[in-house]
């Protein structure tokens, strides 16, 4: 019997606390599989955000630090500068990275910090119960945009990958999705590429992953994946925005 789909060594046995159908867990698995394949688990330090994935430090089977809200890139910078020979990644939500952590991610990218950021964009503040995020789509209803997001009041869904690609320190910036098997495969390869660029000492790398929040979107897990494939990808086009070899 050969194992087709197993359980990555880079994940602990702990069951995820995520809601039913939430793709945070799936993205965890992809990152872990990449760590396994690159055999870097023992020299990797991950940084968990404040967000639903705050407990990522219990799930990834490598050294982990839990950062203040939005500060994961700064924390990762401190770690990487102290251990340039280690692999450092941050795992951040869209509120964490695109709102309160804007300055930290922009300057980590501009400095070309040798870290990899997994940016999980679910267009909402999941952990706090579904408030609007800067990534929330126009017209999308959230607990703080009850009539749907209005560009007059709150501006536009912010495109972090596009914005960070402008910075000279960023060498690999891509947006992927996990709403079906084909995209899941792409997502994993992209994440692997990002870690490889870090290992090669090229510069800052980030993979934005479009993700679901069934509970706060008020959808079934299956419909949520559909919504990602149909609505989100039309505002947040998938692809590689920057690649400096």
């Amino acid at each position, binding site marked *: 019997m050969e194992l087709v789909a197993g359980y990555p060594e880079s994940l602990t046995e702990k069951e995820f606390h995520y809601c039913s159908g939430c793709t945070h867990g799936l993205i965890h698995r992809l990152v872990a599989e990449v760590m396994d394949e690159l055999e870097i688990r023992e020299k990797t330090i991950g940084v968990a955000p404040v967000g639903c994935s705050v407990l990522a430090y219990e799930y990834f089977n490598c050294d982990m630090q839990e950062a*203040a809200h939005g500060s994961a890139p700064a924390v990762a910078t401190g770690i990487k500068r*102290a251990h340039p020979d280690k692999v450092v990644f941050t795992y951040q939500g869209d509120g964490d990275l695109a709102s309160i952590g804007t300055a*930290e991610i922009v300057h980590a990218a501009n400095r070309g910090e040798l870290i990899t950021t997994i940016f999980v964009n679910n267009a909402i503040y999941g952990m706090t119960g579904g408030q609007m995020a800067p990534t929330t789509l126009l017209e999308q209803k959230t607990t703080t945009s009850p009539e749907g997001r209005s560009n007059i009041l709150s501006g536009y869904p912010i495109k972090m990958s596009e914005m960070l690609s402008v910075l000279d320190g960023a060498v690999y910036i891509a947006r992927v999705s996990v709403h079906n098997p084909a995209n899941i495969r792409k997502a994993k390869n992209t994440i692997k590429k990002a870690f490889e660029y870090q290992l090669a000492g090229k510069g800052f790398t980030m993979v934005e992953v479009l993700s679901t929040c069934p509970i706060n979107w008020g959808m079934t897990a299956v419909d949520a994946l559909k919504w990602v494939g149909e609505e989100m990808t039309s505002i947040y086009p998938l692809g590689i925005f920057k690649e400096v070899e």
Partner: protein
Amino acid sequence: MEKTLMKGNEAIAEAAVRAGCRYFFGYPITPQNALPEYMSHRLPEVGGVFLQAESEVAAINMVYGAAGAGARVLTSSSSPGISLKMEGISYIAGAELPCVIVNIMRAGPGLGGIQPSQSDYFQATKGGGHGDYHMTVLAPSSVQEAVDLTMEAFEIADYYRNPVMILGDGIIGQMMEPVVFDKKINPDRLKKKEWATDGAKNRKPNIINSLLLDTEKLEEHNLKLKAKYDEMKERDVRVELYKMEDAEFAIVAYGSTARISTNAVDMAREKGIKVGLIRPITLFPFPEKVIQSTLVNIKAYLTVEMSLGQMIEDVKLSVGGKRPVHFYGRTGGMIPTAEAILEKIEKITENDHLERGEK
């Protein structure tokens, strides 16, 4: 040991390097700029890293990361910048990370001014951040003492796995005095931090974290922290007594205000007034017992601060209502003169005599 003439800011930086600190993360602000500027050329010489962060918030979180990764790390700022570090400091205390934070205080509130002040005492000693936490707060009153306390600060931080603050002001930071550096620590010789996140090779993963969703666990954690603070109160209290042997009145002051107060003490003595000075060197833990031990001879206390009166609360808590505690303070960057302090002392002593006279 060769003497050199150095600014307080630069001396603190050099002391940190000699204490084995190899990482500095900070953001410019007057009147402490000479410190990061010194680090920017000094750290590369010893294979360390000086990184100017995008903000104080980023700087303190870089400190969190480096400290969590096992490094000896320093950050410095001044009042408004320190306020921005409050969340980060609370995290560092909660996650039990050792680091040293320098606050060269300037006048507030708000943007205020850039001249010397001591109005961040509450913030430093009571916990300006959220939650029940404390850090050792060291208040040097000379450049040499700034050097010695800085080197000690890293040891205290590592021992307790807790942040330590060096609380100075524009005078301490800007003035030049002769200093000698006697010690020198090689960071590679320091005891390995088994809890640090430096790669989970041949061991279980290490986790740096301050979140505990289980209230019972979080209470346990808080009690564990409290035990550390209680131990500090037992072991680490530091205070200097000046001419207290035969004193009937005591000035309580720290840092540069204490320096000025020694003048006042001498001037008062010349006038035959028996005054002494109690100079807390650790503001947390506060020298409560030492002050209590002086109650036998001291008729009244005078707290002198460059603030509207902050340390005076700890003095009053120590005295416990058994003696009057008076206050003299200047704010906004104005600096108390020895003459003014003397005048205040003379008033206090006169009143004291009157009162006794009446009895």
